[in-house]
């Protein structure tokens, strides 16, 4: 994964994304990269599709993998569930080299998946998809009352917030006391 052999793939990503079907342009072989999530299932993604992700694009630019190296060392995203990563990959492939539409109807409707998707997309730095996801999250509470919103988004009440704050303060105080005690013990 951490191998950093210098290859020739630095110029490869941009070309196939713009005009893959154009017959006039000279055929440039599209390079592919591999990613896997928490479930270790490897997904093959074209460099053009991965351009949506600022994080992966930066990694590709910096690492300069050859195709063989990329196949041998898929990018690991251990904090992203396999199905969420699959969604992200699908979205990137769908919107490869296309202008992003104002609305995207292919986003998941399930709330928990949407939330995980927001976190994953935020991590992968896919701006357009993040915009869609945030709008989708906002749509979850459309026309809902405050009580319903509180339930859907798990918003703690003021009392719960205060209790949590108190607890956090207490914990911080205890930790500080423990640290000072340990420091005193070391000094002795």
């Amino acid at each position, binding site marked *: 994964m951490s191998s950093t052999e210098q290859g020739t793939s630095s110029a490869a990503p941009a070309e196939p994304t713009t005009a893959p079907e154009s017959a006039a342009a000279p055929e440039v072989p599209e390079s592919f990269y591999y990613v896997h999530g928490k479930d270790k299932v490897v997904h093959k993604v074209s460099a053009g599709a991965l351009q949506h992700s600022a994080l992966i694009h930066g990694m590709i630019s910096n690492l300069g993998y050859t195709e063989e190296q990329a196949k041998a060392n898929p990018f690991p995203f251990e904090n992203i569930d396999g199905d969420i990563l699959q969604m992200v990959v699908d979205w990137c492939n769908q919107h490869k080299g296309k202008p992003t539409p104002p609305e995207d109807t292919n986003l998941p409707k399930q709330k928990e998946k949407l939330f995980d998707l927001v976190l994953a997309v935020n991590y992968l730095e896919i701006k357009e998809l*993040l*915009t869609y996801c945030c709008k989708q999250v*906002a749509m979850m509470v459309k026309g809902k009352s*405050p009580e319903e919103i509180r339930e859907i*988004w798990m918003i703690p009440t003021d009392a719960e917030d205060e209790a949590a704050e108190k607890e956090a303060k207490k914990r911080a105080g205890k930790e500080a006391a423990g640290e000072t005690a340990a420091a005193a013990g070391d000094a002795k």
Partner: protein
Amino acid sequence: MPISLLSLPAADLQYTINSMDVGDLIAFSLCSKRTKKLVKSSNLLLIKTTATVFENDYIEFEILAFQGSFNRDIHKPIQFFLWENRWMRVDRGNGTERWKFTRSHCIAHFMSLFKVRMVTYLDLIGLSQVPYLDTVKQIFPRCYTLRIGKYCSDEVTKSAILKLAPVSKEVEVGKNHIITDIPHFWILKLKFVLLNDEERPLKLRLDDLLILNIRSVYILNTNITEKELNMFTKLWLKGSQRFYRPETIRLHTNNGFKMDQVLRGIQYETVIKDHSYRLKRGDGKEMTIINVAAVLGAEIPPFEVFERRRQSECLFVCVSPLKLRLAVSLFLERQIQSSDSTSTRSDPPIPPPPDPILRVHLHQIRSSDFTSIRSNPQIPSPPAPIRRFHLHQFRSSESTSTRSDPAIPPPPDPILRFHLHQLRSSDSTSTSSDPPIPPPPAPILRFHLHQIRSSDSTTTSSDHPIPPSPASILRFHLHQLRSSDSTSTSFDPPIPPPPAPAPRAPDPRAPGPAPRTPAP
């Protein structure tokens, strides 16, 4: 399974909040203090709030706001129906919902959410219990415009003015007769007062006009006499107070005002174009009277408009409000159309209005000067002044030619706004004054003698300017004024009456409009 929105990264959370519409944001803000803070930091912008107070402790609260990221045109008001000790009902445009919040909680919450300290409009509708006004004041400690409906009882109207007008900037009252019972009403420091009782005329007196401390007054029905207006004008001309606050006073009467009586004994200049009369006093302040009825062809009783330019004082006098609006509309339209057809070709064309308010640059209107006034020097275009008219004024003007058109509803806000210096153009400097006024029966006014000595109303313009008086309120002794009038030279011809009624409003599109010169 629910998701924890607040655990999202800060940027995503903010973006999500900015993607919500106004109604959802308000609901979200009510979830907790944290959510309220988030909404406060969002791009939510308030346009106005309206609180309507009814009998039986029932309040309707309306919020008109929009998201900064959204198109402004798509906003719609959100209404809250609030009873004391009951949960509120909300209408966001999709039927009413019930939210578990009390009135006292939510009003304070909304004020804090939009970072405002006053409601825009506080409407009192049909209230009859005076003590309830204390509750109203407690809930809405301040408001921008207080509107007291005509169905409120007399006691409530009076108490509401006394209690709530001092915490307001503008006041609209639906009952005229209450005003006379409130001794300090005219010295309230307000920006605007509208007395919209068209049924009963207001007994407005000269003293009221002299002590007036309200910047803009609009009275839809008053029975002030021409004599008092004449007196007021004379006193204003003789006065030198720089602190007279009113900028606009519009007075409507059902009977019409006789211009020759209003202007009797006063030296003035006639501006032919808009049938206005310009008065100038020693310290340079100016007042303009506009005879819109003459513009209309005098088919309605004449009304006059006084204005004092530059130093921001003016007075409007006119007939019934509907007719006034028609008159003003026609007048404005005619100005614009004639400006298109006149000989001044160098003026740039009027740009199309960008929004419902039509803006016309004054120098364009000025170009419509009548060509007969050859002696007038060319007036340079002012740098900035813009004339603004609401479109409905223009719309209404279209209907003036057919008398059977339905009445135009009065607009909610004062609509006549124009810079006075636009009237400066196209003057014909006919100066006249009337024979002296007979002495009035009782001394009403007081003034300092040195003010009168300095200039008589009928003296010529070579008089020295009046030195400024230290007093901030106009007070004149009437007998002094009387003597000054009686000793004045009376060889001047009488004030010309307003131009004779024409059978029809002249066609503004007619090329080369013939100038109407006033009678000598």
